[in-house]
């Protein structure tokens, strides 16, 4: 089995007096989409933020392609090729769509061919190219947030609840976009609460509860096991279409 792109071992994270991550262990394989599931407050967002260096692990190790990034600063993690889409999308509302994407391009302007590919995934961004990002709808903001993460090829995408608050039609559009990203071989770690979304896209899955990984394996295996879903998540995937 090839070495994973990202590997967490015994990761603990404290935020103030709260002990959020309590020994998280899981791997993200190269080229696939790993879903991180769990109930509210399980520690999924903290896990992404700890990988990104926005909060630092108090114990354990995070390795990317074998290199230790446990104590790395956020810009250094980003420069390793990690893109992060936070739960609140983190778009710059006072900048235009074009400026948001230009900022995410490390050198110069975004590549024209890459932009055309992004416009194919999210046509609304072309329509509102010179408009303020703050004036976009919720779905369009999410499209912009993901477009910003992929405006240049990245080695790993960390995406926090991409379907949150979106209409079903937009979610379908989002699923299509992630499928296209999977076809390009981009490695992704996606936190999700929408189980239909998770089942549609996930190759592998890790389930968190109370700051720990309580299950890791193939997504299709979890999707086929209603009893396991109920035990791990409290609900069956089939009840969440």
């Amino acid at each position, binding site marked *: 089995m090839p070495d994973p792109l990202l590997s967490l071992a015994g990761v603990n994270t404290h935020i103030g007096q709260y002990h959020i991550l309590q020994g998280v262990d899981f791997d993200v394989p190269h080229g696939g989409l790993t879903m991180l599931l769990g109930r509210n407050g399980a520690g999924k967002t903290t896990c992404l933020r700890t990988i*990104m260096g*926005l909060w630092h692990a108090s114990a354990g190790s995070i390795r990317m392609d074998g290199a230790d990034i446990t104590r790395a*600063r*956020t*810009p250094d993690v*980003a*420069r390793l090729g990690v893109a*992060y889409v*936070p739960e*609140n999308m*983190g778009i*710059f*509302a*006072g*900048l*235009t769509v074009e*400026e948001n994407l*230009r*900022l*995410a391009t*490390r050198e110069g302007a975004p590549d024209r061919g890459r932009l055309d590919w992004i416009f194919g995934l999210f046509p609304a961004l072309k329509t509102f190219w*010179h*408009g*303020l990002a*703050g*004036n976009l709808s919720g779905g369009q903001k999410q499209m912009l947030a993901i477009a*910003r993460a992929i405006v240049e090829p990245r080695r790993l995408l960390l995406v926090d609840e991409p379907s949150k608050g979106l209409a079903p039609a937009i979610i379908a559009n989002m699923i299509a976009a992630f499928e296209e990203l999977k076809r390009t071989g981009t490695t992704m770690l996606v936190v999700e609460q929408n189980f239909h979304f998770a089942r549609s896209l996930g190759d592998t899955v890790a389930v968190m509860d109370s700051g720990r990984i309580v299950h890791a394996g193939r997504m299709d295996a979890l999707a086929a096991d209603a009893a396991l879903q109920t035990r791990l998540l409290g609900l069956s995937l089939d009840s969440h279409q």
Partner: protein
Amino acid sequence: MKADWIPLALVPAIAIAALPLVGSAPTWVTLTVAGLAMGMMIFMMASGLTLVFGLMDVLNFAHGVFIAVGAYGAASVLTRMTHAMEAPTLASDLAAMAPAVVAAIALAAALGWFFERVLIRPVYGDHLRQILITMGGLIVFEQLILVVWGPDMIPLPRPGALSGAFIVGEAAIERYRVAAVVVGLAVFAGMWLLLNRTRVGLLVRAGVENPEMVESLGYRIRRLFVGVFVAGSGLAGLGGAMWAMYQEQVNAQMGAQVLVLIFIVVIIGGLGSVGGCFIGALLAGLLANYTGYLAPKLALGSNLLLMVLVLLWRPRGLFPVGRA
């Protein structure tokens, strides 16, 4: 992009509304130019503070020291160059003023760098400590100014070519005020170009909204913080030098004396908004001059009233900056 024109219209609206109240057109012209000049100088002093507020979330009550140090730096140079200013030609005056302005900016910027590294950096994210340590810094450095330059007020005559007034019709317009308007407009134009036409400006605007996301895109926001803090301090020094020549004297408390007005302008404009700071400064300058003429007893409170009215209308200031 849809522009928000209403706050921009406030400046001419206040000026036009004041005309019938003042009664005399020449007096109104004089007051309006004086108000615009005062506003431009306040803008120069306040523009750095609003970026520091917006980008770094730092409450810097020591900003007044940068103003005072800039003024003293300019005074130190100008008092040694009186010979250059004896011939009242614009060229000789500008030649004398250029090193004074450079000294003001450099001294204030260097002090800003020291402040950021030694006083501000340990208290990022802690507003209470920021207030305490910057207030302490203000007191200590005001005393150090007295140690270095002495306790006496330093008279600072204006350069000859910038003294006196133009007479336009029946209105007297002070030359120095026109110069202050020109310098203020140049500073605003420079900042606008920097913020809207360069990658550094793009980073600053993004950082004001969401510094964490800028870091997540791979940029070291701390370096940007230092740059903005130093540049903001330098601008305060420039504003201090201009203000000192306007007042024709320098004293250690001059920065602290205008600090309340500067905070009002920063709040009116919207924390982190340079455009808002510009409009807020012009409104404050005009209102102070009109009320000073019409109802001198209200002059001191007029800008507080302006702030209350603006915040009732727009609780996050004229041009609120989205902050994640």
